[in-house]
């Protein structure tokens, strides 16, 4: 979406927007169904599918056993034979118990079969920390899967995007990993009633600026906007670019913003080391605009540590708007 603002619509939560997107697709296509742990009467661990079983019934809103390899493999086999499954993986950390089905099966079926297989799966999963859920229920693991050819990766930052990107993901004939941001589930924003699709691979400029580019995705977009607002009070005009999807990556939007401001700060909640920010930095460094940068690229991410439990430790470990502000100031050579 080229503009900064979303079109008008009802104010609903990020979780409700995802539900809205699923509802549209289940109504539109009988081959679409949702399965996952406790997605039925319980409504999913975060309430995203609340009430859906009443409309669509247990044949299409399907509780699985706690058996993630079987559930994701089942989605793959169903997709290969004509269905269009949505799978909810309760926490993205649980990819650890079904990683083979994601990276060796879903991602590679089409390629290994010489284009014979089609694997239209949407794997929705709750991602991120800040909830006091500690090391095994708080990670941001999107870079792991963005690395695998054959997978698409979406990380929506707003309710409007959550619905539009989800509809695109379900319509897409490839496996899409859809990282829902736990701390955004209850945030609200305008979401139109009707169905609409946001194409995968189109970043959005959330705030225009000339002095520095903050490139972010997911929950960090909110932090980046808050940081930009505070910087504006100091006379610094920071641009905020929301990637929306990591694969496909909107390389053009990244390079345009970097070329425009000459200063780049990349912010994600994931651990900085080996995170997706490195890919963005390299993309910029390898391009012609790498030569015109006015300051070294800076990354803002989590410390190299499992997500801790204690509120004080967790807050210290995860990045926030203050970290973004200080990174922007550093690129502008402003003393802290």
């Amino acid at each position: 979406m080229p503009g900064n603002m979303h079109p008008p619509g009802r104010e609903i939560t990020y979780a409700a927007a995802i539900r809205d997107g699923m509802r549209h697709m289940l109504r539109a296509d009988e081959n679409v169904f949702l399965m996952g742990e406790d997605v039925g009467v319980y409504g999913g661990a975060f309430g995203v599918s609340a009430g859906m079983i009443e409309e669509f019934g247990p044949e299409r809103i399907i509780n699985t056993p706690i058996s993630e390899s079987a559930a994701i493999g089942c989605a793959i086999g169903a997709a290969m034979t004509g269905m269009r499954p949505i799978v909810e993986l309760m926490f993205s950390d649980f990819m650890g118990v079904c990683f083979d089905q994601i990276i060796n099966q879903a991602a590679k079926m089409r390629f290994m079969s010489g284009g014979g297989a089609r694997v239209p799966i949407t794997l929705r999963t709750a991602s991120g920390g800040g909830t006091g859920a500690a090391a095994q229920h708080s990670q941001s693991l999107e870079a792991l899967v963005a690395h695998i050819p054959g997978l698409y990766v979406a990380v929506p930052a707003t309710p409007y995007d959550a619905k539009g990107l989800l509809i695109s993901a379900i319509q897409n004939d490839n496996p899409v990993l859809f990282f829902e941001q736990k701390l955004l589930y209850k945030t609200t924003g305008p979401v139109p009633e009707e169905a609409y699709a946001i194409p995968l691979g189109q970043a959005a400029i959330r705030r225009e600026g000339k002095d520095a580019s903050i490139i972010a995705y997911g929950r960090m977009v909110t932090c980046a906007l808050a940081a930009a607002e505070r910087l504006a009070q100091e006379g610094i005009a920071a641009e905020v670019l929301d990637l929306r999807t990591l694969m496909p990556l909107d390389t053009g939007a990244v390079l345009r913003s970097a070329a425009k401001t000459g200063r780049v700060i990349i912010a994600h909640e994931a651990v900085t080391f080996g995170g997706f920010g490195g890919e963005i930095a390299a993309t910029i460094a390898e391009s012609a605009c790498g030569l015109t940068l006015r300051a070294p690229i800076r990354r803002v991410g989590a410390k190299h540590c499992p997500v801790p439990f204690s509120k004080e430790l967790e807050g210290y470990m995860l990045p926030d708007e203050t970290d973004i502000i200080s990174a922007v100031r550093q690129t502008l050579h402003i003393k802290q």
Partner: protein
Amino acid sequence: MQTLLYRMHTARIFEERVLSYFREGALHGTMHPGIGEEGSAVGAAMALAGDDYMLATHRGHGPAIGKGADIQRMMAEIFGRETGSCRGRGGSMHITDFSCGMLGANGIVGANAPIACGAAFTIKRKGLGRVCASFLGDGALNEGAVHESMNLAAVWQLPVLFIVINNGYGMSTPLSAAMRDTDLKKRAVPYGLPAYGLDGNDAVAVYAAVKQARAKAAAGGGPAFIVCDTYRTEGHSKSDKNLYRTPQEIARWRARCPIRRLCEALLGAGILDARQLEAVRARAAQTVDDAVAFAKSSPPPNPDTLMEDVYAR
């Protein structure tokens, strides 16, 4: 029965030919021969209906040929040619032929079982009256994905046939070193699956039992677990030196060759005479010759097409 014999011969000759090309250094990569297992691999796959689905393991040539996969495209795939089953992207370990319901051989042990549940889910949801077979080895029975799938298939009553080709070894590790109780049928009990224990070198018995299980599953009777005891008389892959088993053991099993056994049965029952038996073998050899000729005359894939199938457009 003639078709069964023909496909078993085809699988045997196909793999012998491919192995010989590997030994000459004429082929790139590797293969996992199922020579000696044809009674199970071909017998079980042939018992499936034409539009049934199946998924195979890394040792997948026999089941694919049993299911009726295109032999020429299979051979071209192993030769890495554009005309191959997977356009040269998959090789021996990933043979796929959607035209006969063969959804793919898989390089990860046990990983096809969850996918088979998914194909069976579609069958059940759409009321197609088919089944999906998941071919597994004995080695896969210690993989979590297989246990999860047996459970899911049972609790959702999916039309999945878990067909275990028990060749006694997980690569070099004998069954007795991999599980305490080697009676594989018992693995079905806690999941509430009916189990069949078969002499896997008796192709006719395998065919008949799978046919029966298939009919029940296709009619909505739920999944089944079928164990075929057999042996691979060649190594795990082309690079196996057979250090973990004796020549005597291999010779003992060679003497129990499932193809010879079927020939003797057909001869004994007066269904085919010696000349007719030889004609079936010769026809299979001709099929493989033609496949080799097709593969050799096919072009390799053009590198410009590499990225075509990473994503569906």
